[in-house]
């Protein structure tokens, strides 16, 4: 991110007094909270986080080794801001919006320091198609033109903090992001780029209650615990339970128009996997590479901790910017625990009074401020847009009672509880169906009735009931073995197994099974229900559970997952099921 010095204010020079890791102290510096400053001879980027008498305390976004007391500090007078405009999509940034590809050119394969790089290319020309007319009154948020950025149309808006005015000149043609494309009658000039301070939410006209699900193509999510467009969800789980895979599946397949993926304090190789894989994957709707709708932020665990703290804000600001254009945006933050730890680390260097488990007392406030930036909104220009936020949480020891998980659960509406036991069994996605919940079920009912089937909500409740019943029965089975159960309940156990193995288990690495649309989900569940109905009827007619379990068509059903054009095969299986059961019944 490049920060231009404010021209109106004379930049004041301060002097460094103390350096202790990523937190440094300066004196004689005229500063306000969250001003961006340049530290030392190498001009490392930092941010003011505390002012105490003469002392200004600064968190530095880069490694501070080799910096000495007495070196200069200058204040840019600006707060940490993201550059917003054409060029964001397909980019990969670090936590403070420096493009990593540009950094490789500037400093090689390893991240050195003291290099600044603007978030957007200021040389590249984009074809600007005007929409606003001369004489038209434009207000904050008004779309004045368009740029075909990838297969996504990037809408150029009047910044939210600008005053309304009448258009005097509107240009058309190829421009860089800095060149003026629109002049108002009062003489104000607007380029395509806008800058927005990352810690401040972008304003909207109205926030609304979500009513449409974010379709993710993941059966357990869409089917049992859906998230709404504009909603919030948390995925907590111990290591190895599949948080990252689930997040990546959502980034790949959710039906948002724009995806912002924040790798916050996570593994470098994982980001490489995303970078290598995304350009080759196709959006199931548009058929275009997924990368074209994606912005990646990668601040891996060994990159500076202060930039990790900022990465989440940079990401959500970019998400809000696309929302303001009228897009549905989904944002994945992996992992919010690392973000919280970055806060803890900075806080402890500030010698602040710690709250629970050493986290700062403002942890809950920061988390809720962040999740509250999600939502289904009417933007300033009246278009609907949304930001859905899905945060991974990495609780120490997989213990959900720790502060980050608990504070997150108080805010989010959807809880996908990952379970190490399931992942050890290679049941993926390892989301525990008994502990998870979604508070959007009622709000989304109307959508499912209309778009999937009026039967859907009923069949969903039926499946949940069976799973719940199974959990109770399993406790008995653990004591006496399954043969001791009444026959009808042995059938229930079998049906629950089918729901788990056929419906809930989904193979992210299979080219077909990785994405499952709502119709197929409904058809699959209906087939299981059909089996259950036939099985219970047969059992009443005197057919033994062993005979029911041996039904051939049941063994065929899992194959449906891996068949793209599954309908003919499914119809065949259902018919066979019918035949087999009637044979069993008449024999009994």
């Amino acid at each position, binding site marked *: 991110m490049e920060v231009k010095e404010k021209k109106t204010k004379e930049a004041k020079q301060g002097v460094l007094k103390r350096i202790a890791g990523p937190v440094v102290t300066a004196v004689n510096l005229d500063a306000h909270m969250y001003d961006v400053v340049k530290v030392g001879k190498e001009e490392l980027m930092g941010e003011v986080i505390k002012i105490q008498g003469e002392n200004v305390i600064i968190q530095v976004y880069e490694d501070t080794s080799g910096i000495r007391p007495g070196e200069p500090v200058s204040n840019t007078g600006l707060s940490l801001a993201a550059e917003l405009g054409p060029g964001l999509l397909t980019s990969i940034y670090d936590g403070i919006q420096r493009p990593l590809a540009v*950094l490789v050119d500037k400093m090689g394969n390893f991240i050195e320091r003291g290099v600044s790089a603007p978030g957007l290319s200021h040389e590249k020309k984009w074809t600007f198609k005007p929409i606003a007319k001369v004489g038209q009154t434009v207000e904050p948020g008004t779309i004045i033109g368009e740029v075909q950025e990838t297969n996504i149309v990037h809408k150029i808006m009047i910044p939210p903090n600008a005053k309304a005015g009448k258009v005097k000149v509107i240009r058309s043609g190829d421009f860089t992001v800095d060149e003026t494309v629109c002049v108002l009658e009062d003489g104000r000039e607007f380029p395509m780029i806008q800058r927005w301070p990352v810690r401040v939410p972008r304003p909207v006209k109205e926030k609304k209650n979500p009513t449409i699900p974010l379709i993710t193509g993941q059966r357990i999510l869409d089917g049992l615990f859906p998230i709404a467009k504009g909603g919030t969800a948390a995925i907590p789980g111990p290591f190895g339970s599949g948080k990252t895979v689930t997040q990546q599946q959502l980034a790949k397949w959710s039906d948002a128009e724009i995806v912002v993926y924040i790798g916050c304090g996570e593994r470098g190789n994982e980001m490489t996997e995303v970078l290598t894989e995304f350009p080759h994957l196709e959006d199931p709707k548009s058929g275009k590479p997924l990368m074209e709708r994606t912005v990646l932020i990668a601040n891996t665990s*060994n990159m500076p901790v202060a930039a990790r703290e900022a990465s989440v804000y940079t990401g959500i600001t970019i998400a809000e910017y696309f929302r303001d254009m009228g897009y549905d945006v989904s944002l994945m933050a992996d992992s919010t625990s690392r973000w919280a730890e970055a806060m803890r*680390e900075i806080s402890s260097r500030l010698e602040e009074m710690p709250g629970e488990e050493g986290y700062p007392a403002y942890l809950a406030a920061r988390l809720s401020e962040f999740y509250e930036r999600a939502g289904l909104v009417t933007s300033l220009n009246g278009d609907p847009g949304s930001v859905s936020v899905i945060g991974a949480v990495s609780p120490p020891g997989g213990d959900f009672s720790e502060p980050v998980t608990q504070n997150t659960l108080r805010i989010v509406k959807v809880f996908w509880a990952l379970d190490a036991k399931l992942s050890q069994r290679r049941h993926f996605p390892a989301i525990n169906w008994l502990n998870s919940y979604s508070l959007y079920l009622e709000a989304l009912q109307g959508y499912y009735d209309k778009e999937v089937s009026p039967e859907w909500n009923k069949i969903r409740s039926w499946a949940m009931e069976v799973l719940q019943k199974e959990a109770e029965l399993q406790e008995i089975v653990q004591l006496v073995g399954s043969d001791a159960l009444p026959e009808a309940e042995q059938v229930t156990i079998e049906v629950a197994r089918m729901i788990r193995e056929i419906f809930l288990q989904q193979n992210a690495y299979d080219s077909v099974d990785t994405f499952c649309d709502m119709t197929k989900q409904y058809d699959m569940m209906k087939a299981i229900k059909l089996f259950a109905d036939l099985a219970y009827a047969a059992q009443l007619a005197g057919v033994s559970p062993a005979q029911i379990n041996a039904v051939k068509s049941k063994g065929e059903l899992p194959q449906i997952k891996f068949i793209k054009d599954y309908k003919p095969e499914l119809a065949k299986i259902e018919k066979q099921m019918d035949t087999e059961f009637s044979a069993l019944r008449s024999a009994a």
Partner: protein
Amino acid sequence: MKEYRTINKIAGPLVFVEKTEPVAYGELVNIVLFDGTIKRGQVLDTSDELVVVQIFETTTGIGKDSGVRFTGETIKMPVGREMLGRILSGGGKPIDGGPEIVPEKRLDITGAAINPYARGMPADFIQTGISTIDGTNTLVRGQKLPIFSGAGLPHNNVALQIARQAKVPGSTESFAVVFAAMGITKEEANYFMQDFERTGALERAVVFLNLADDPAVERIITPRLALTTAEYLAFELGMHVLVILTDMTNYCEALRQIGAAREEVPGRRGYPGYMYTDLACIYERAGMIKGQKGSVTQIPILTMPGDDITHPIPDLTGYITEGQIVVNRELHRKGIYPPINVLPSLSRLMNLGIGKGHTREDHKKVSDQMYAGYAEGNDLRGLVAIVGKDALSERDRLLLEFADLFENRFVRQGYDEDRSIEDTLNLGWDLLSTLPVEQLTRIDRDLINKYHPKFKAGAKKV
């Protein structure tokens, strides 16, 4: 070089020096004792009035009369090709009686983060010859895969067997081993050294030894020296480097010791709040770089205090590394070597390195099926203890037998037994063929017809 005699306070491994000229953060410091001995340290906190120096050795002999010299540079390490075959102390000094290292380069030991954009995607399968790793928790080049163990378990043997047998099938590229010991006993160190010598591995290894009686704080720099060497061998000389770090638990104890001496606010169980970041700066130094030869693969070993996987050390490690190999006491008691429990073990990069073009097309599905079978069979053991074998259904009885077979034939192997991946997968099929074929729901029919011992040869197909 200016020498200060303004030491004001010495506490634990920290020395506080007053009234100096501006000293850089992270600078290397030499402290000169009255008898001329030099102790090394690093600046942790610097201001006009006070500089805090962390000493890497014992503070024995340091007093207010000791001289303090600030060297003006951060800690750098001399590296060179000649280091192969050498044994160095935990502080990087030769202790094998050989000459000093002639440096080809001097590198900063903290090492910079690899730009995620410049990283190459790990995809080369490393065959370790151990079925539980190759078959079910595959290691690939550029991965960091720790061994989680407990006191008294044979993790060292497992690590040595990996170091000895690791190869990329069909590749002849040069590779090296960097071994860093932190706080292990002389006896353990000898065991490693003897094995290296026995197998001739020493000539392509660099060994760093910080033993149990060496200063604890020196352990803070030992893994950094080892990784700086590994990066040099990998990214400047184009070698494939396997780094073994043992024991990370001792490293974390040293970290806690320094945190306490600095009177920092402690995190969980007294470990510093920045331990995640600190460990990440070690583990993340594994990987490959796009368009470059060479790679750094890490196998850190840690002993879980009280075999508790939720203890902060294994917990934070598991969140950073790409999986873990868990050594299990119960299997060890049953006399099974290597006692690797596959259920909590995981390799996150496995899918990148297996399948068609890497190992074999059926690898993933065979592995999943074995996992599922073993997990279920293992659960049933609890049930059998209550209701007895006779109360089990036929399906459950077979699963129970499968679990036993899995442990005795798949997990168990000899210390020098080097199984090829083909052998491992075929063995997997042999075991799976004891289950009814309808129960193999995770494998598609084409693969069953091609590889299942009962179907592959005959005309009978499912």
